[in-house]
């Protein structure tokens, strides 16, 4: 790759700007060479099972019960539809009957045309004693001898949020049974940065964009939220009196907990999957390098020592023995992997402008943002790519989104990716299946960025 001298001079500044999400107006000073068009594909694991979600039968006709019933039905339908492993029967093709119990269930109605469902989820919903009580079943319509796959009962306080939670739980049970043992993600959360209140603070929402609420109230700029694997601690980079530092918020205590300030600009923290180590980039020595410390930020050790910025580390969650990161040691930022002791460095991308890696839960893939033809007048833009690490083959997931795509983050089941799409005027958070299909927007308002999917 041929690089011009100005790019080398400007790269440290560009890297810092990119990390601060201000890279929209970066000068395009270099052009990457073309490379071979080699494509691979990712598998979401399971062929799609045709499943029907029958409307749950309300056991009372009052407005409260009916309201919760519709909320439950819509949430369950949405969860199953976005799971990525089902071919959901359209509600217009479902039989008119609304079975509430197994005795009312006529399997043949659902296995026959036009529904042609292989599985059907049904049940009843009632509001008694201030609680929403849901009985749900999953039936195998092709097995008339013993069709029951799942039968669950839930009882939660009567509220919209708890009703949605019941639907998420039931959807996850179905996905666990039919998805080859991979747990569903309906109960997971997404942490992200939002400037909704004027300052960039950390927010949290359900995986489907519902129940968004603010986590931090630091009245400053906070970036790069990363939730710990146990879900108890939230690490992020925050601008304080002494510059950019890694800070940690306890989700259990609801307040900040201590994390040492080591000097320099400290950005992009990353938890190991065992929750015992945290990697981040620090310029305490003058040059941004990757450091690894324990969960409290102690026992720091530096694992990169090459001139040029090294930022955005992520662990291989499968083994915790490898780290992928972005390095500008050869000019424009490229994707690298190395062992967690700093050895065995491999460059993964061969050109362009790569940022924001995210390692898939099974350790097989890296998702990252990549501008393959970086330079003045170059075609294309920044999109989300997935690379198979063993072969370095890649696939482009986003096309023509009308803006820069950045900050991909894998869901814990490895079937979904959440990312940010920035049109220049506004940025919102989107989600899609890991093969690039099923893309839809989660946030509105145009002030959301840097999503991070929780571990469970």
């Amino acid at each position, binding site marked *: 790759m041929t690089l011009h001298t100005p790019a080398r001079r400007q790269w440290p500044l560009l890297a810092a700007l990119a990390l601060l999400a201000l890279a929209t107006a970066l000068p395009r000073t270099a052009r990457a060479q073309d490379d071979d068009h080699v494509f691979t594909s990712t*598998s979401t*694991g*399971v062929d799609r*099972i045709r499943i029907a979600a029958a409307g749950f039968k309300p056991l009372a006709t009052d407005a409260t019960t009916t309201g919760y019933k519709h909320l439950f039905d819509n949430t369950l339908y949405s969860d199953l539809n976005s799971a990525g492993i089902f071919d959901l029967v359209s509600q217009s093709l479902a039989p008119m009957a609304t079975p509430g119990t197994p005795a009312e269930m006529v399997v043949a109605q659902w296995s026959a045309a036009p529904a042609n469902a292989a599985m059907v989820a049904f049940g009843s919903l009632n509001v008694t004693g201030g609680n929403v009580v849901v009985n749900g079943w999953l039936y195998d319509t*092709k*097995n008339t*001898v013993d069709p029951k796959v799942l039968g669950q009962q839930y009882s939660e306080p009567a509220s919209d949020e708890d009703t949605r939670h019941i639907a998420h739980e039931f959807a996850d049970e179905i996905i666990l049974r039919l998805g080859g*043992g991979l747990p569903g993600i309906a109960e997971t959360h997404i942490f992200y940065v939002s400037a909704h209140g004027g300052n960039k603070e950390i927010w949290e929402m359900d995986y489907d964009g519902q129940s968004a609420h603010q986590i931090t109230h630091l009245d400053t700029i906070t970036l790069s939220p990363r939730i710990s694997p146990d879900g108890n601690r939230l690490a992020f980079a925050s601008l304080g009196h002494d510059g950019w530092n890694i800070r940690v918020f306890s989700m259990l205590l609801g307040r900040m907990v201590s994390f040492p300030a080591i000097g320099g600009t400290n950005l992009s923290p990353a938890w190991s999957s065992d929750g015992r180590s945290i990697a981040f980039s620090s310029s305490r020595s003058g040059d941004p390098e990757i450091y690894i410390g324990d969960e409290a930020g102690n026992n720091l050790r530096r694992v990169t020592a090459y001139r040029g910025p090294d930022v955005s580390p992520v662990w291989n969650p499968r083994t915790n023995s490898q780290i992928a990161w972005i390095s500008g040691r050869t000019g424009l930022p490229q994707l690298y992997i190395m062992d967690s002791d700093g050895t065995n460095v491999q460059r993964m991308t061969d050109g362009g402008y790569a940022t924001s890696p995210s390692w898939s839960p099974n350790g097989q893939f890296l998702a990252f943002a990549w501008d393959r033809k970086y330079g003045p007048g170059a075609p294309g833009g920044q999109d989300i790519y997935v690379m198979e690490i063993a072969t370095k083959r890649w696939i482009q997931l986003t096309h023509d989104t009308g803006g820069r795509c950045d900050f991909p983050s894998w869901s814990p089941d490895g079937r979904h990716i959440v990312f940010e799409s920035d049109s220049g005027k506004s940025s919102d958070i989107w989600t899609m299946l890991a093969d690039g299909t099923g893309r839809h927007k989660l946030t509105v308002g145009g002030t959301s960025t840097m999503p991070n999917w929780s571990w469970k």
Partner: protein
Amino acid sequence: MATRIHIAAPPITGRANVGGSLVLHVLFAGGIALFAYTHHFFGHSWGDNNQNIGAIQASMVNAIPLPSTAPPTDNVLATDNPSQTPAPLTPAATTAPKPDEVLIPTKTKPPTKIAEHTTPSILHPQTVAPSNRIPAGEAPGMRIAVSTVSLATGTSSMSVPAGDFGARYAYYVNGINHTVAGQWWQQEPDPRASDGRSVTLIFDVLRDGTPTNVRVEKSSGSPTLDASAKHALQRVDGFGGLPDTYRGDRITVEYQFDYHRPQ
């Protein structure tokens, strides 16, 4: 007397010559610059228009419509295209028979009679496979307890030998099959040595869904294919707990990996 006419030419000095030349050059260069300047802003340049400043827009066509080769005609009703209306039917010309003519009757061939084939076919002795089905009533929802997945580089199929697990819990068998298939990294087998070969593994699935006791039942003869199959099982954390209504504590699964070289 000779008249002497003195024509006095104006004295040409070197300085005036140079000065005039400079003025003319400056004026000429200034004119070119002014023309270029005004033309730059108010005229059009090559490959440029107001909608696409800074880029050349080319419209590629694969055919240019040439003029018709048919000669022109003054008939306003003439057309190059034939009418779609079919021509009117003309009755076939028939000649009336003469009054004293004796018509020769047309001979018709009688149909050939074909004797029915009554030779009985030879009955070979038939062996009927023993069945353990209960003759009373039918067994609805019979399922084949073998699940097959088509992959880019072959197929993988599996069966649960014992009991009717595959028939009762086909969805679970399907989940096992696809989970293992998804973890089979098809770049691991050597394409040439493994092409057309298959390896069969046997493993147990415990109550909590964990695969264990993986062994090769039938080797493919290609060490890389055998290893890739075992690696696929090693990458699986679990298949999810066995179905609630299943009373056993484990199931044994036969899993066959068929490899075909990618095209």
